[in-house]
C-alpha cells in the first residue's frame, strides 16, 4: 500500500503575541477586547510601550488623553510613555 497526500486543510486560531495575558488597565485578557469594544479581534489590538508594558490600544490611548495624566506616563511604571 502506498499513500500520497494531495491536499489538506487545517484550522488554527490566532492570538496576540504579547508578554502578558491581561491588560493592565482594564484587566481583560488580550484575547478578549477592551471594555468599549464588543468583539475581540483585529479591531481591538494590544500595544506595547518601550517599557514593555502592554495594554489594549484603546485603553492606553484613553489613559494618555485623560486629564489626570498630563505628563503622559505609563500607568505601570510612571515613566514617560514611548511607543
Amino acid at each position: 500500500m502506498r499513500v500520497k497526500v494531495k491536499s489538506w486543510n487545517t484550522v488554527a486560531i490566532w492570538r496576540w503575541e504579547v508578554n502578558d495575558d491581561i491588560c493592565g488597565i482594564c484587566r481583560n485578557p488580550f484575547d478578549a477586547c477592551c471594555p468599549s469594544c464588543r468583539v475581540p479581534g483585529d479591531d481591538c489590538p494590544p500595544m506595547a510601550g518601550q517599557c514593555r508594558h502592554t495594554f489594549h490600544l484603546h485603553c492606553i490611548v484613553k489613559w494618555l488623553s485623560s486629564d489626570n495624566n498630563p505628563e503622559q506616563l505609563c500607568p505601570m511604571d510612571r515613566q514617560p510613555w514611548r511607543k
Partner: protein
Amino acid sequence: MCTGRHGNQGAVELGSETKEPLLVYQKLLEAAWIFRTRSYYEQEAKQAIAALPLSEFIRKAHRRLEEESARCQRYLDPSSHDKVLHPMITEYIIQHADIIYADFRTMLVKQQQQDCFIIYTLLLRVKDGVLPLQTTFETFITNECRQKLSTLDWTSPKIIGEYVDSLIALYTHYTTICERYFANDPGFVAAFDKAFRAILNDRVKIRQPELLARHCDQLLRRRTRDTAQALEERLVTMIKLFGYLDDKDIFQKCYSRAMAKRLIADASISEELEMTVISQLRKLCGIDFVGKLHRMLTDIELNRDLNASWQAWSGNASDGGGIDMTALVLTTGAWPLLNQSQSQLILPSMLERSLSNYTAFYQEKFTGRKLTWFWHLSKADVRMHHAKRRYELSMTLYQLAVLLCFNRQSQCSLSEIRQQTGLVAGDLTRTAKSLVDCGILRSDTALDTEPSNALLSINEQFESKRTRIKINAPSPVESAQEQTTTAKAIDDDRRLFLQAVIVRVMKSRRELLHLDLVSETIQLATPRFNPDVAMIKRCIEQLIDKQFIERDLTNRDLYRYVA
C-alpha cells in the same frame, strides 16, 4: 342645536331654550323607553336562554343588540344610546355570563370559530367582560399543546425535528385562531404569548433551548429538500419560539457551538441564511448577544480572501512539496472552545513544508500574531495505491497519520502507532477503529476496550467499486463530559453577567436595600435568563469580598457602592 335629526327631535327641541335643554326629553321619553326596554328584554332573554342552545342564544343576543342600537339611532337623541343599551346588555349577557363563560371552552375545543367570535364581540360590550375569556383561552392553549407534545416518541432518532414540527404547527394554528376568532385583540395575543412562554419553558427530555438550537443547526446544514424561502420562514418562526425561552443564554451557547462546527466543516447551506438568523436574534436580544456569532461569520469571509492571496503567494514561492494546503485562521475568543483534544500530533513530515510556508506567509501578512494549530479539525485528500488499484480518499488528519504508518510496513501495533503519531488513548483507538470499520485496516482484537497490544495490519482484500471514498470521521465523543463543561460554562457566564449587572446598578444608585438590588438585578437579567435568587446573593457576597460594594455598618440590609 348640535344633535342630528331623528324621530323624536321634537321632544328634544322642546327644552332647547332652557338651562338643561335635554331635561324635558329625558323625563318625558327616555326614562320610559329605558324602563320598557329593560322589562321587555328581561322577559325575552329568560325565554331564549331556556329554549335555545347557547350558540343560537348568543346569535339572538347579538342580533337584538344590533337592532336596538339601530333603533336608538333612528328614534332617540345620541346621548341615550348607551343608556338604553346598557340594561339590555345586563339582561342578555351579564345575567347569563356564567353560562357563556362555561360554554366558551367547549366552543374552543370544538373549534366553533363563529361562536367564539360572537361571544368575544358580545363580551367586549361589558367592562372587563373578555378577561375571563382570555384566561380560558390561555389555559386552553397550554393544555392542548402540552397534551399534543406529550404524545411524541422520545426514542425516535428524528425526535428533534418532530418536536419542532409539532411546536411550529401548534404555534401557527393558534396564531390563526387569535387572528380569526379574536381579531388579534391585544389581550388575547398576550394570553397566547403567556401560554407559549409556559410551554417553551416546560422541562422535556432534552432542554428546549438546546433542542431549538440543534434544530436550527440541522436546518442550516446541507441536505434539505426545502426551498430557500420555506427554510427562511421556518428559521424565522424558530426565532419567534426562541423569544419565549427563559434560558436564552443556553440557546446561545448551544447555537454558537453548533455554528462553529458547521462553519469549520464548511457545511453551512448559505451565509445569507446564517446572517438572517443572526439579525433576527439581534432584533430580539441586542448586539451583545450576537457579537461573537457575527465575528465567526466575518472570520470565514476574511479567510476566503486570505486563502486566495495564499494561493497566489504559494504559487510564486518555491515548492510546497507538491501538496496543496488551505487553512482557516480563527480569532481567539470569538469561537467557542472546540473541545481540544489531548493528543500532541506529530505532523506527518510531508506536510511540514507546506505548513512552514503558510506560517511564513501569515507572518508576512500580519505581525504580532501567534498561531495555534487545531490538528483534530484538519482534513486531507490523499491518493492510495492498493492491490493494483488507485483510490482517492478524503479523511481526517488523524486518520492520515495512522494510515501513513503503513506506508513502510504492513503491520503495526497500537503502541507503535502511538509513538509514531503522538495520538493518545481515546483518539488513537477511535481513529484506528474508523479505519478498520471502512475496511482498509484489519485488527486482531476488538478495539473497543483500548488494548495497547492490538496488532493492526493492511487488509489485502480491501476492494471498493468506487474510487472516491470519504472515510467517516470517528464519531466525536459528545460525552457526559462535554455536557458538564457546557453546564459549567453557562454557570460561569451567568455569574459574571450578574456581577456586572449588580456593579452597574450599584454604581448608578450608590446605595440600595437588599431586596431592591435583587429585584433590579432580576429585571435586568431576564432578557437573557431567569436568575436564581441564591445565585444573586452569592454574587453580592463575592462583590463584597472583592470590595466593589460594602454593607452598611448599622443597617445590614443596605449596600453601598465603593468607588
